[in-house]
């Protein structure tokens, strides 16, 4: 168990690509932190620097109270789970899990004890003598996790461990990872491009964009108060609708329609609206032209246009819809972003219309 501290960490690849820039994070002991961002934003690079698989160009990485910048991966007391499992194909499940311990000259009976314990925890006991190729994807991923667990490291590092699994398995493995991490209390850094996975797993989220931290916070805080229009559009499904708007006379306007009062200075703004914060109402402020509807069963997502700009609304009704609607907006549910920088403008906390399920 340990803290992981990144101070001004950066990575410039040969060829001058700034893959990671000035990342500062304090990961607390036992905390589950998820690095999330679109493909190519530098998540893997950052994780691999913590693992010691990639050199650190700038800044300092500490695990516990040791600076690990120049330590070998094996000496950092971490364990890593890879997207493609990276199991040794010629070794049995047991040997796969035991290999790292053997290299550390752990006593034989201790190895057996730990492997058996991990196998029990992960329900892998019946497969201990099989080779990885005789296992399903989900089982392979569990072996990869077993290999990490038996090491009893200071920190777990995960690089998109569920991306190769089918959707259903992904959901159940997600739960399993969370449960295990809580039970073991091991500090974890988890990389994913899937915002839903990030939301459900994380104690804290780090949203990365082009190698720089866009926002750090608890999932619900990030969801409710996205620090930028980028985060707003990235976190949450359906994505938050972002409309070109303007503030004048103490109100937010979309085209000729006054949406709600605003306290920010007058001028152009980007208005963010969560789909669940919009209501269909005859006296609503915004006219919407319906484009298409996604039925999800419990609710449906109505996609359409307001003043020619895309917008999405969720509602639970099942009636057929007219082609033109009016939308009402809860005044507390506005997100206003600077047009130029994309940063959040209002300081008042936006009140969610509904708690996240």
């Amino acid at each position, binding site marked *: 168990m340990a803290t992981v501290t990144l101070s001004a960490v950066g990575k410039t690849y040969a060829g001058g690509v700034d893959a990671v820039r000035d990342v500062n994070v304090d990961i607390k002991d036992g905390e589950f932190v998820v690095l999330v961002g679109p493909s190519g934003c530098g998540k893997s690079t950052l994780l691999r620097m913590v*693992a*010691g*698989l990639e050199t650190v160009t700038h800044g300092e990485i500490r695990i516990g109270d040791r600076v690990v910048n120049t330590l*070998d*991966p*094996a000496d950092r007391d*971490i*364990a*890593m789970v*890879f*997207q*493609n499992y*990276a*199991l*040794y*194909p*010629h070794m049995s499940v047991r040997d796969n899990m035991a*290999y*790292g311990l053997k*290299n*550390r000259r752990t006593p034989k009976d201790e190895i057996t004890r730990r492997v058996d314990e991990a196998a029990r925890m992960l329900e892998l006991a019946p497969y201990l003598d099989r080779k990885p*190729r005789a296992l399903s994807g989900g089982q392979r991923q569990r072996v990869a996790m077993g*290999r990490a667990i038996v090491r009893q490291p200071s920190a777990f590092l995960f690089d998109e461990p569920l991306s190769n699994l089918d959707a259903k398995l992904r959901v159940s493995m997600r739960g399993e990872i969370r449960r295990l991490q809580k039970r073991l209390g091991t500090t974890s850094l988890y990389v994913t491009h899937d915002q839903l996975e990030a939301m459900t797993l994380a104690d804290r989220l780090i949203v990365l964009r082009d190698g720089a931290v866009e926002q750090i916070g608890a999932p619900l805080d990030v969801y409710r108060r996205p620090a930028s229009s980028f985060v707003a559009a990235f976190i949450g499904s359906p994505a938050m609708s972002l409309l070109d708007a303007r503030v004048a006379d103490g109100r937010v306007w979309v085209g000729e329609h006054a949406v709600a009062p605003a306290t920010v200075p007058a001028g152009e703004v980007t208005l963010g609206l969560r789909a669940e914060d919009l209501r269909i109402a005859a006296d609503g402020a915004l006219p919407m032209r319906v484009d298409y509807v996604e039925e999800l069963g419990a609710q449906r997502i109505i996609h359409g246009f307001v003043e020619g700009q895309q917008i999405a609304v969720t509602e639970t009704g099942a009636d057929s819809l007219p082609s033109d609607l009016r939308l009402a907006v809860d005044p507390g549910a506005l997100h206003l972003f600077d047009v130029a920088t994309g940063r959040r403008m209002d300081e008042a906390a936006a009140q969610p219309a509904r708690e996240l399920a």
Partner: protein
Amino acid sequence: MQRVKPLDHLVLILGALFMGLPVIVALMSSTHSAVEIHSNGLYLTPGGDGGQTYEKVLTARGGFTGDVTGLLMLGNSLIMGLGFAVGKIVLSMTAAYALVYFRFRFATILFWAIFTTLLLPLEVRIMPSYQVMATLGLLNSYTGLIVPLLASATGTFFFRQFFKSVPDELLEAARIDGAGPWKFFIDVLVPLSKTMMAAIFIIMFIYGWNQYLWPLIMTTDESFYTLMRGIKSILQVWVGSQIPDYNEAFALAVLAMIPPVIVVVVFQRMFIKGLTESDK
């Protein structure tokens, strides 16, 4: 199910005959006496002198020194074949490992340099190689017979391509598991390469087994005679009215075929097993 087509079978049968007949002729003829062969030509039916001929070929002492037996030649050929196969595998695996996993400058250029020079056949560099071995005093030694031919462009190339296809994550997982370069090689790469090793073993064993020119030049001592030289020297005894010992040459040829066949059968099984089992 595919329908059985007569034409396919005809082609296969013809092919099998084409490949198999010479072997059968050699085997059958080796059981007749030299005189019979000389007067009647080659045989497709077994004769009565087989046991005697094979015994003579294996144990009778021949050569100028009178010390060379078939068994000795068989032993020498085996040493050549095994030495080649094992030596080439070890050398080309370690070379490929260095080329793929150690980041040193010019690795690619170096690889192609090795590759192009070694593409030249032995015959081209046979004089300098001989010169080097002579200077080192390695004429008439197994070292001299085997070592100069060990560097293998083919083997290095195959292992290089194979190592490149091993996912990087495997190396990274091993690094996190505390395996250094040596342990990674022995614990992970070598077991994964079994299939490749079997394939290269087959090729290189036969290459070594069939060496003729190099042993001919390198060794003057008859105790280094190989089967290939033995066969040749039997047929060279064409002095006066003496009939060459055709039957013995055929018997030696048949004997010379057996070890490569065993190697192919054994290692092919390993090879196919490896192909169906391995996934990286």
